[in-house]
């Protein structure tokens, strides 16, 4: 009988604690989403040049395990005017979100930092085909995501604005030269390293 009485004690002591459950759809009562959370993929927007990062290179489309994406590319008019570093630009992009398994492979394979797993994860829609995201809605998802986590491009070579890219590249080059120089110094005479 001792074991049962211990069990009764456990349930009674748990009753005194605060509930651990959350009230899901209510805005300030639901659980927080962690920073790395993988929701549906979204296309990112290059603010420096007012165009998407995506060039429509189709790598993500090919690598997707469920073949839930489609994309077409077009020539970038801005490139011929010299206002952009992107020769090609995405023309149309579609993701069947009910087919997507949020594995994150498309983000891994992207060479242009153009796609990112957003924090969007709610699938319920009122129309049957409403969870087929097109370029417009994907970019909207991406914009919300970028402003939410204050996203910054990972590789400088992907920045669309030619002037900005040159400036940043020069700065990075100077930085790396400085580090190399310092490392050289450290290799030569370790006692003199002040860094």
């Amino acid at each position, binding site marked *: *009988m*001792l*074991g*049962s009485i211990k*069990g*009764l004690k*456990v*349930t*009674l002591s*748990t*009753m005194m*604690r*605060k*509930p*651990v*459950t959350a*009230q899901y759809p209510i805005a300030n009562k639901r659980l927080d989403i962690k920073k790395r959370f993988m929701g549906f993929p979204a296309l990112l927007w290059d603010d420096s040049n007012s165009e998407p990062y995506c060039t429509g290179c189709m790598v993500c489309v090919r690598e997707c395990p469920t073949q839930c994406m489609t994309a077409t590319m077009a020539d970038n008019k801005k490139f011929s005017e010299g206002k952009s570093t992107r020769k090609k630009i995405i023309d149309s992009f579609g993701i069947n979100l009910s087919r997507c398994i949020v594995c994150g492979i498309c983000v891994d394979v992207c060479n242009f930092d153009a796609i990112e797993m957003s924090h969007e994860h709610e699938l319920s829609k009122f129309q049957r085909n409403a969870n087929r995201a097109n370029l417009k809605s994907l970019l909207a998802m991406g914009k919300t995501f970028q402003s939410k986590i204050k996203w910054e491009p990972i590789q400088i070579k992907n920045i669309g604005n030619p002037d900005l890219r040159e400036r940043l590249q020069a700065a990075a080059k100077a930085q790396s030269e400085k580090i190399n120089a310092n490392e050289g110094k450290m290799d030569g005479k370790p006692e003199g390293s002040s860094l």
Partner: protein
Amino acid sequence: MTWEAIGWYVIGAFGLFIFLSITVMFLTWIERKFLARIQQRMGPMRVGPHGTLQPIADVIKLITKEDILPSWTDKPIYWLAPLAIFIPAIAIWVTIPFSETLVLQNLDLGLLYIAAISVLSVLGLVMAGWGSANKYSMLGGLRAVGQLISYEIPFIMAILGVAILSQSLSLIDIVNDQSAIANIIVQPLGFLIFLAAGLAELGRTPFDIHHAESEVVGGPFVEYSGAHWAIIQLAEYVNTFAIAALIAILFLGGWSWPSMPFTGITNDFLSLVWFLIKIYAVILLIFWIRGTFPRLRIDQLMSFGWKVLVPVSFINIVFTAIIRFYNLHWSILTVISLISIGIIFYLIYKTPQKSRKKDSIRIISAKDAVNNPPKNYGDINVR
């Protein structure tokens, strides 16, 4: 009987029915909330503040829901079964008093009436089990009958013990007899027997064998839906309330123990409140047990009923009778009861482990296992 008296009975029965329905709605809410807190959940929160209007939403949903009739059912039996469960559940309340005057009809043989009527609801379970044309329902209905006899005898024996103490079968007399000292102090053993048998009668954990969700998926009620299911559910909760009220009356002294220093209307009102508090305390105890215990198997319930409850209830009756006959002091009975409870608990504590030692699991360190492989590697004869 005059027309006036009949009119009062009708009004009283109607009032009782309304009271019970509201109580049941409150009970469903309190059970959900209580279990939720035990499990660190919130329970119903959406309808009304803290989900207080949830039962009303449930009732509306159940009444408006389609009543499904599976095609192979035995139709008259299928439709009559909920009534056969519901009528005994309400009929018990005819003689359960809320205070000395607030009772529909006080019967001198009230306890006998209750013991007789409460068995009837099992008939409804069997009817539901057979009529549904579902094998799970069938199993559940047969389980309900199977367990009936094993708990019904201790149930009546525990009632008899109380009747011997107060020399009456009328519930009001029993309550008034306890104004000095409540039966739970005199007969703790009888209280535990009645609680266990009552739980089995209600089909609540750990004896919810006939509608075990994980085995027979709801037992006799698998096929019911809508209003008929609502009636069955109503009957279950009315029964729960009735058993709790009986425990409060038979063992906790009803409204009269401990007696209050008030008189007149205040006294009447406060004793009614006091009685309801006792009932709800018992109900919370039942819910608490539900939140903690696993379910027993049908044969284990039977052996528990026959091998533990029946002999122990006989002991209870014999000692009660001896003490009553020789007019000994009640504390002797308390001591005897407590000693027997100790012995039973010790036996229950020992039984499951008797066949094996408690610590049958040993932990082998990984390094040991690599260095000296255990001997039984070589002993195995692989066929």
